[in-house]
């Protein structure tokens, strides 16, 4: 009896070490042969590439340690694009593949708790002294923190890879603004465009304005002043114009005329102060609320009972994130309409950067060219994944109806329309909105500044602080995040 606990612990230990034995065969007995099972279909190359600890094994298979392509990502989006669309990629398992004689290793670190950037920072800072097979070749970034990486020597200029401006002529300019460093050098490329529009609830529009025609609705939200007047009308009819003030933030912040940081001093753009002013008025009038994006309360307007008039977002929002596949939702009934809204903006997107010191520059160049400029591959991405690709030729063709598409299970080719948007073809609108977008006013501190600004102002909107207190809080928060920045002195 008394030995029971000890024996249980012993059992646990034995079980665990047995499990360790199977789980980690590559680590524990890299040289030894027959621990089949787990890795049989993976093949020798995969096993070698899979574990850095398996030095003995990898030396045997990869004769040239430079022939390892290390790609750092935070989710599987780019990986599945490569797997599905890049010619010559052979998948071995979830984090390994090959292209020709090069082994591809995906290093996936989720972005929660800033883990992705922490990991990437450490790797890049260590790039010079890293073993050849561990050198990072490519990494992905998001718009909010792109400049943090782009504006350093750790990222390679695109032109150094041998990619010319002519190659990139079909891309949307804004996608290049985001990854152009302070000297005007382009250092990253994206296969996506994420131009945003305003999606409005057609039923609500008919009820309040007696029309759901995009052109008519556009007149009601043509600029921020009319937008705010419309908000009052909607409020009287029982609707919130948008679910939260955070919905419009992106639209204002994409249209700033100055940077967040100028000469090491924090600078709040006039357009952002206008957001604060407009938002405070809307919240005080009860025309909208201060919900966080993606919270349950924010999402309630995906359904008619939520009584939300409009959401701002790109194609992916309405296609995949607004419950269009669920009975009873507005999207399910094709009840959304799309119009440009007060100002153009974008939301989302992923950029590919080449790391300085890559030993596979040619392959990196080829992946970038194929994924971000090749018409055939990019059309394929639109058809298969419903992505909005970063290619004017492809998108204009689809927008005008010149290019027809045929998806799996469809009997004939047809023009690109959206069932969710009541068979409207929104592409011309997306294309128009993004064309005039000027994003040259980005700084390397945007992620922190945008986050903290919204957080701080929420206190003001909710009545927990005066505007001055909220601004003070913002400056404090920035000083903590970016110790090198200073608050403006009046």
């Amino acid at each position, binding site marked *: 009896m008394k030995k029971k606990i000890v024996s249980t612990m012993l059992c646990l230990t034995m079980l665990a070490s047995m499990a360790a034995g199977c789980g980690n065969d590559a680590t524990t007995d890299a040289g030894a042969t027959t621990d089949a099972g787990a890795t049989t279909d993976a093949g020798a190359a995969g096993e070698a590439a899979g574990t850095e600890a398996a030095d003995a094994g990898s030396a045997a298979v990869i004769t040239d340690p430079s022939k390892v392509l290390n790609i750092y990502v935070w989710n599987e989006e780019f990986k599945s694009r490569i797997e599905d669309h890049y010619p010559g990629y052979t998948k071995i398992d979830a984090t390994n593949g090959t292209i020709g004689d090069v082994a591809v290793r995906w290093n996936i670190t989720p972005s929660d708790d800033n883990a992705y950037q922490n990991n990437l920072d450490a790797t890049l800072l260590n790039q010079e002294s890293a073993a050849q097979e561990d050198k990072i070749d490519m990494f992905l970034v998001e718009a909010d923190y792109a400049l943090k990486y782009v504006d350093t020597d750790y990222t390679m200029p695109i032109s150094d890879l041998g990619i010319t401006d002519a190659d990139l002529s079909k891309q949307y300019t804004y996608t290049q603004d985001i990854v152009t460093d302070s000297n005007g050098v382009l250092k990253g490329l994206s296969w996506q465009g994420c131009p945003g529009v305003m999606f409005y609830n057609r039923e609500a529009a008919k009820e309040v304005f007696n029309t759901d025609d995009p052109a008519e609705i556009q007149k009601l939200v043509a600029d921020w002043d009319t937008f705010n007047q419309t908000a009052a009308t909607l409020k009287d009819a029982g609707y919130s114009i948008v679910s939260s003030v955070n919905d419009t933030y992106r639209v204002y912040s994409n249209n700033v005329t100055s940077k967040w940081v100028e000469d090491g001093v924090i600078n709040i753009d006039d357009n952002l102060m206008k957001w604060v002013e407009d938002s405070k008025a809307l919240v005080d009038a009860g025309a909208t609320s201060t919900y966080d994006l993606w919270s349950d309360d924010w999402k309630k307007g995906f359904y008619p009972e939520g009584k939300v008039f409009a959401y701002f977002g790109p194609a992916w929002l309405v296609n995949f994130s607004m419950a269009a596949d669920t009975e009873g939702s507005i999207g399910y009934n094709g009840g959304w309409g799309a119009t440009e809204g007060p100002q153009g903006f974008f939301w989302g997107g992923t950029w590919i950067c080449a790391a300085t010191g890559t030993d596979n520059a040619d392959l990196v160049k080829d992946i970038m060219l194929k994924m971000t400029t090749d018409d055939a591959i990019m059309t394929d991405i639109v058809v298969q994944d419903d992505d909005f690709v970063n290619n004017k030729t492809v998108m204009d063709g689809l927008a005008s109806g010149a290019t027809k598409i045929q998806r799996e299970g469809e009997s004939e080719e047809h023009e690109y329309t959206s069932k969710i948007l009541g068979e409207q073809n929104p592409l011309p609108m997306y294309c128009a909105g993004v064309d005039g977008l000027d994003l040259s006013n980005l700084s390397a501190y945007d992620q922190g500044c945008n986050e903290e600004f919204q957080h701080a102002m929420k206190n003001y909107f909710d009545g927990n602080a005066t505007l001055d207190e909220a601004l003070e809080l913002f400056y404090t928060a920035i000083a*903590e995040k970016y110790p090198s920045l200073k608050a403006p002195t009046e």
Partner: protein
Amino acid sequence: MKNNAKAVRYNKWGYIFLLPFLLVYVVFQFVPTVTTIYNSFYENYLDGLTQVGPNFVGLENYKSLFSSGDIWTFTKNTMVLWIMCFVPQIILSLVLGAWFSDVRLKLKGQRFFKTVIYLPNLIMASAFSMLFFTLFSDGGPVNSILMQLGFISEPYRFLTYTGSTRGLIAFMNCLMWFGNTTILLMAGMMGIDTSLFEAAEVDGATSTQVFFRITLPLLRPILVYVMITSLIGGLQLFDVPQILTNGTGDPMRTTMTLIMYLNKHLYSKNYGMAGALSVLLLIITAILSLIVFKVTGNDKRKG
């Protein structure tokens, strides 16, 4: 003389038994700890990908910690949250422990109850708070129940008021950890010789008397443990408020704890400020722990 020699021979085993702990400790924790203290005297952070410092700045980091006064606000927040969560937790745990150990009460289904209380701790804090967000949202079930019962006429926005935000944090933290505390106390109560209780019953002592005269005094070492670790845990309160307020400590940083503040500095790998804050935290914890030790009596071993 003989005895002494024997003792010495045995006592070398003290060192042998300590060896694994010390070895692992030195390799994996001692070095980072020393660098933490060392760093607190340097300016040392990442500006984007550019390393700034390390430059020796003396007590500059400590000065800037104190100059803003925020540190006291966050210390106060942390203590308030700890008390809000610890007091109900320790009372509940002691009461449950007393009931479970009370032979006269003869509670049925004890094993079930004892098992159930720890279960909330098995849920990851991040998953737990996902559920809290759903339940306490404006359109969530808690609000709709309250509105149906007529307590409120429009949704109560739990996370926009200091009181309710702190309340939710304390509630969630308490739920996650009271089982832990109860189990610790119960394990301690198990160490008490049951014949003592039987003897007390024969002597006609009431349950209350048994609890205060027998259980509590014998439980003292474990209680000291619970107090101290809870105090340390309380001062290091982090994940629940961090996730529940999305790292902001909203409204207006009234729920920002010391470690959340520390975490802010780690964003830019600001080892200097983080180091200074840690040293300060260490000092505060040490002082408070010392007080607990003193109040609960000296830690002298009984023969």
